[in-house]
Structures are given as C-alpha cells and as structure tokens.
C-alpha cells in the first residue's frame, strides 16, 4: 500500500492557509514591524551603537527570530488545538490509514512552515530597509527553519497538555515572554546578571538569535554547529515528548 505519511496533513493545513494567505501574512507582519520600527527608531535614537551597529539593525535580527518563534508557537498552540480538540480534525484523520505520528509530524512541519513565512516576511522588510549586508543573509533562511521547528515542537508539548485555550496564556507568561527578554532580542544579554545570561544563552530563541544576528551583519556566526545542534536536539526531544503526551491524550 502507498503510505502517504505526514505530508497530506501538512497539505491540508496549507490548503486552509492558502485561502486566507494574504491577510494571514499581513496580520503576522504588522505587530512585529510596529515594535521593530517603534522601538528601533524611537528608542534607538537615544541609544549608542551596539557592537558597532545601529540599534535598529540589532533589533531587526531579534525581531526575525522572535517573530518566527511567535508564529510557530501560535500555530502549534491555538491552531493545532482547534484542529485537535474543537474541530476533531485529528480524530477524522486517525480513522484513515494515517497514524498519530503522521498527524503530529504534519502539524510540526506545518507550524514550522507558517513561522518560516513570518520570519521571511520580516527579512524581506528588513532587506528593503537596507539592513542586510551581503549574500550571507541568505543563510538566515535555514536558521529561521530551525528556529521554527524547535518552537513548533515545544508548542505541541503544551498543546498535548492543554485542557482549554486559557491554558496557553501560561505558556506565554511563563516561557515565551521571559525568554524573549533574556535571549538578546531587545538588548544584549551582557546587560543581565551573569547567571541569567547563562540560562538565556541556552534557550532556543538565543540559539536562533546567535545565528541570525551575525548573518544579518554580513558575518559568519561563531559556534554554528553548536547552535544548529541545540535547535535540532530541541526539536527532536520536544517532538518525541509531544508525540508521547498526545498519544496518552487521544489514544488511551
């Protein structure tokens, strides 16, 4: 038999998205851009250069990563939860030859895809603003993919545990928001107490930032293998946990 695997699940979500693609991209773009332009030019006007670059350029790299993270997280939480719990789309799929691994993997790759659209949209704007420096910026694309995958997998863990939409707020207040503040999105982590900076450096958002910021500045990032490795490991481990928890939830 021809076993289609996760692809039709990804395809299903893509088909839904395609119907509302433009408003979806613009909607995802507006919020991070407002922050980036507002803080970048408003706050940035009062700030010195950071590591030899203007604050807006520093912030642009952080915004690409934070925006990717947010898009992957929203998709893996709210949208996946709608499909799993409200619309029972997953139940319908599980009555076909597809298995739960296909469903959860399809959701993982879809959330990563959607976050890739978001990260790319920001990158395009940033490029149009003249904030990229040379062709190395193209390597930001795979960095966005890796960041999106890691946060999609992490979001799916929380999705598997959530009793309702309200539960997702805790994920943002306890995990996403503090991480955004200590991962070097808005300001360099050397402003933080040493222990906090150390925690921040290991978080997946910081791994993405560590890749994207130098690439945007036209430099080769340090410790590429380490950052890529941490993001891939986060994806693999989080996906395994998410799959196990979802199995316990749906197929007990």
């Amino acid at each position, binding site marked *: *038999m*021809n*076993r*289609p695997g996760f692809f*039709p*699940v990804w*395809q*299903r979500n893509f*088909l*839904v998205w395609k*119907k509302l693609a433009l408003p979806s991209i613009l909607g995802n773009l507006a919020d991070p851009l407002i922050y980036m332009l507002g803080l970048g030019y408003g706050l940035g006007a009062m700030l010195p250069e950071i590591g030899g670059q203007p604050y807006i350029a520093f912030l642009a790299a952080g915004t690409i990563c934070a925006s990717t993270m947010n898009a992957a997280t929203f998709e893996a939480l709210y949208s996946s939860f709608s499909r799993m719990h409200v*619309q*029972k*789309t997953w*139940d*319908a*799929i*599980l*009555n*076909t*030859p*597809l*298995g739960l691994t296909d469903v959860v993997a399809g959701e993982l790759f879809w959330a990563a895809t959607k976050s890739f659209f978001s990260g790319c949209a920001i990158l395009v704007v940033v490029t149009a603003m003249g904030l990229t420096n040379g062709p190395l910026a193209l390597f930001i694309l795979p960095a966005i993919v890796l960041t999106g995958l890691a946060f999609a997998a992490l979001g799916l863990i929380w999705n598997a545990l959530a009793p309702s939409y309200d539960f997702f707020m805790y994920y943002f207040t306890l995990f996403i928001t503090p991480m955004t503040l200590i991962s070097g999105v808005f300001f360099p982590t050397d402003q933080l107490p040493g222990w906090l900076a150390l925690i921040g450096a290991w978080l997946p958002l910081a791994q993405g930032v560590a890749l994207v910021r130098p690439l945007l500045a036209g430099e080769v990032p340090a410790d590429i293998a380490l950052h890529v490795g941490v993001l891939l490991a986060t994806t693999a481990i989080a996906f395994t946990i998410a799959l196990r928890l979802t199995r316990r939830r749906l*197929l*007990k």
Partner: protein
Amino acid sequence: MAALDVSGLKKRYGDSDVVAGLSFAVEPGTCFGLLGPNGAGKTTTLRLCLGLTAPDAGDITLAGRAIPADAQVARAKVGVVPQFDNLDPDFTCAENLLVFGRYFGLKDADVRQRIPALLEFASLTSKADARIATLSGGMKRRLTLARALVADPDIVFLDEPTTGLDPQARHLIWERLKKLKSAGKTLILTTHFMDEAERLCDRLIVIDHGRKIAEGSPRELIATHIEPQVVEVFDEAAGTLPAFVDAHRQLADRVEQSGETAFFYCRDPQALLAALAGADGLRYVHRASNLEDVFIKLTGRELRD
C-alpha cells in the same frame, strides 16, 4: 474469513471494565449491529476494532489484519462514519472529499474522478462547492458517509449514523446503507434506534456493561426473547390503570408498568382485548412485539446517563 473477528476483548479504564470479554464475528457483505444503552461500551468497542486504543486482552482481526499491530494497513480498507461530525469546516464538500482521499494515499486525479459519484450518492451534487457551515444536519451526515467511501472500502463502520436527524434524512441514510450492502460492503453499525437495527441488520448483538447479552438476527431475537404480541394500555387521567392491571394480570404472560402505561406481553391477547373493550378511561394499542421490546427486556427500563 470474517470481515471483523473479535474474541475475548477487554478494556479497562480506571476501575471500570468498559469492555469485559466481548466476542463476535462479522461475515463479509452483511450488516452487523452493535446495540446497547448509553455507556454500554459500543464506542469503545469500535475504537478498539479500528486500532485507536490498545485492548487489555483479546484478539481482533479486521480485514484480515491483526489489530492494533496492523491497524494502519487494515484501515486502508475501512471507512468510518463517526458519531459526531468532524468534517473540515474550512473546506467545501468537494474539498473535504479530496483532502480525505489524500490521507488514504490516493492521487488527486483519481479522487477528483470519484467526487461526482460520491456527491451523487450523498444527494449533494448541487452542494459540491458549498461550505460545510451552510449544510443541514442531514447533509453533513451524508457527506460524512460519502467521505467514508472515498477510498472504496470493503468495510464501513457507522457510529450512530442517524442520531439527531429528521425522519426524511434518516430514511435517505437507510436507503443508502442498503445500497452499500447490496454492493457487497460490510456494514458495522451502532445505534439506539431499534427500528433502524431491525431494518438494516442481518445480525446483531446487544451489549451491556461491556458484555454481550444477546446475539442473533432481529427476527430470532424477537422470537427467542419475547412474547409475540404487545398490548400497551394508557391511563387517560381516570386513575383506573392500577386496578385494571391487578385484575387482568393473568391474561398476559408478562406485564410491565412504566409511568402511565402498562405493557401486556402475550401470546394470545384475545381475552385481554375483550376486557379492554369494556374498560372506561383506558386507551390501548395492540401491536406485534419488536426489537425495542427485546432491548428493554434485556437492558431494563431505568435511565442510563
């Protein structure tokens, strides 16, 4: 070989045995009914048969495959109409079928070719491009049935396929299910509607508390478990029913009372009917006994919530 063979099936949740040693077999090309009150274990049994949850004990063979080990392979030959509609609200009717076909590994071109026939089978040809939210309950059920047929399955599971439908919609579904059976499909059906089971099922089992309590064709079950005739006597607010029941109990083989109605189960109701002809303040209906009488005798009259 049976389309579905279940033996010694057990499933426990917490400290309740939801399925407690169930065995049955479904012959290919027949309609098999799984009947029981709410909470009897019907839906859990279906989930076990589809490999959506692992049994604590017992063996299941579906379409020649061991379940749950080979469930994904077996499900390629199976269509499912679930109890609650889970059509994709973001898609049109035709898109629902197309997307579902992909889950079976079908090529888009092949599914597109099948869509007109599937929509026609569901009497939804004019709704091909309609969104799900615009469909009535009956249309949604029919589309769910068409969706279950997208990969031309040998076996179709139907979990309460007509619950919540009006009589017209219900009759249309029944007619379509008969058509599927004459096309050689095996149907496995759960229902609360005894007339539905009587019309459609070649064989059925009644389960309660996860155990099989009766098995046979609807006719056999009626012949085996219950007197052939029923006289239902209703009190018309005169309050004379209890006295009538006491006085005429011996005219029936068995009498059951439920609220303002007494059910006299008899082999020969002539004497009882004569007595009723002269009784004031009582109304009655004389009918042949049916599967619902059997069901209530086997599972009791008290509510199951």
